[in-house]
């Protein structure tokens, strides 16, 4: 089996970082998640360990023990080479509703102007793509989405906003995302998604996992308001479709 090469780097005494080639690639992401599943199931089985995948890397952390870097590094190389094909876990495509109403889409007209398109074309481009979750970080539940249409690429705002409201749907460069909570932010805000991506009161606080897919579809402001109420009382269920492996 032809696997992309890995590079293992020390990261303090409690962690090591495994790196794959420096590119945004679904093939690499699949490999990382495959290796992560193996390590969680077969090697790092106790609660001391945590693994954090993102784009082209996988961090392995032990909360308390000092790691023997040389030993762990050679073992990781060995396990990686011996990695066997295994059934893929359940993966989901989440379809999330977005209102592009100007009340929420603070920058949608500016984005349209800069890209010489109409607002409708911007919405069509944004809803026309299937995005891949390459990482979750920055804020609890903040997804780094890859897969934006080339025609929708636009630099982040020259001056970041000190306050972006919860649910804001943003684009910047090759990335798309949703602000899961109010925060400062420099991305172009083109709409709002009322579905709470992160809910600390749930046992699984974030329904999305790295490797999942996201699609957006347009709803009206009235539908958005209803969705928001449903989310607040906890009855809204995001639409999910199982992806065939």
């Amino acid at each position, binding site marked *: 089996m032809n696997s992309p090469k890995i590079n293992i780097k020390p990261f303090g005494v409690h962690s090591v970082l495994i790196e794959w080639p420096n590119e945004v690639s679904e093939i690499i992401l699949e490999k990382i998640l495959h290796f992560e599943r193996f390590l969680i199931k077969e090697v790092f089985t106790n609660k001391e360990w945590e693994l954090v995948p993102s784009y082209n890397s996988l961090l392995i952390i032990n909360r308390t023990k000092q790691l023997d870097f040389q030993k762990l590094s050679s073992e990781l190389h060995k396990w990686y080479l011996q990695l066997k094909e295994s059934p893929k876990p359940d993966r989901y495509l989440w379809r999330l509703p977005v209102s592009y109403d100007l009340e929420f889409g603070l920058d949608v007209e500016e984005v349209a102007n800069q890209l010489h398109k109409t607002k409708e074309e911007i919405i069509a481009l944004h809803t026309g793509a299937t995005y891949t979750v390459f990482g979750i970080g920055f804020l609890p*539940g903040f997804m780094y989405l890859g897969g934006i249409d080339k025609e929708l690429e636009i630099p982040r705002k020259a001056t970041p906003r000190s306050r972006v409201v919860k649910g804001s749907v943003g684009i910047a460069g090759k990335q798309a995302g949703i602000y899961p909570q109010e925060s400062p932010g420099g991305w172009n805000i083109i709409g709002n998604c009322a579905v709470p991506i992160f809910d600390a009161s749930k046992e699984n606080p974030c329904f999305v996992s790295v490797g999942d897919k996201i699609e957006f579809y347009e709803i009206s402001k009235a539908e958005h308001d209803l969705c928001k109420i449903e989310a607040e009382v906890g009855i809204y269920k995001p639409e999910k479709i199982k992806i065939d492996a």
Partner: protein
Amino acid sequence: MLKVLKAGFYTTIQDSGRFHYRNKGVPVSGVMDEISVFKVNSLLENEESAAVLEITMTGPTLIFEKETYIALGGAKMSATLNNLPVQNYKVYTISKGDILSFGKLEKGFRSYLAVKGGFTSKQVLGSRSFYQPITKYNRLTDNDAVPFAVQEDFQPKISEIKVASFLDDSVLEVNKAPEFDILTDKQLEEIFSRTFTVAHENNRMAYQLSETIQAHTISMLTSATIPGTVQLTPAGKLIVLMKDGQTTGGYPRAVQLTDRAICILAQKKGGDTISFKLV
């Protein structure tokens, strides 16, 4: 209950941290100075994960609404119990109505109050550590009440310990972080030969350092970070991530603080100076 009469500058409930949600973007949080907290919890024969109050810079005034035992540690904050001075790392018996008050910050930055059995506030995602919006509040405010368990008689095995203080230490021991090997000789030389000043932008998320080193144009994909990671921004600024620090970042990770170095830095405030030493 422990009632908060005056909350002080920034007082929070913290335990050993919130684990197993980093892959969903949740920082680990937890006490900034683990060494000091380990000692106060040990004195009270508490579990290591027992929740304490983390008191930053200026302390609160607190009234105990039932009996318990307490120990203080970390920064020196001239605390008094019913107007009598209280020393760090000593067990005190508390009666109903006792008032604990923190005065002037003498040394360090974060002080800890442990009670026998730990504070028993609500856990969210497996931890009592404050971190908004995982927890409803980011700090205690006046008139808050913090629950703790009723204690039967407790005879501490040791009622007082002498502690070799690290509050005067300023050398932060570090190990290599993932991008260490792509730093220039000049950057490495600057990191390890200079003295850095803690900027006023310092909090539980990150400590920025005032002096800059050689700038860079390294571009990398977002990747995981942990408490104690020292990031280097393109402009040459060093940012040390702390317990509430974000779980991923896009800046090169130059070095990684040891556990002890995180505690040393946690006791520094804006204007204090530190240096780095590779071990």
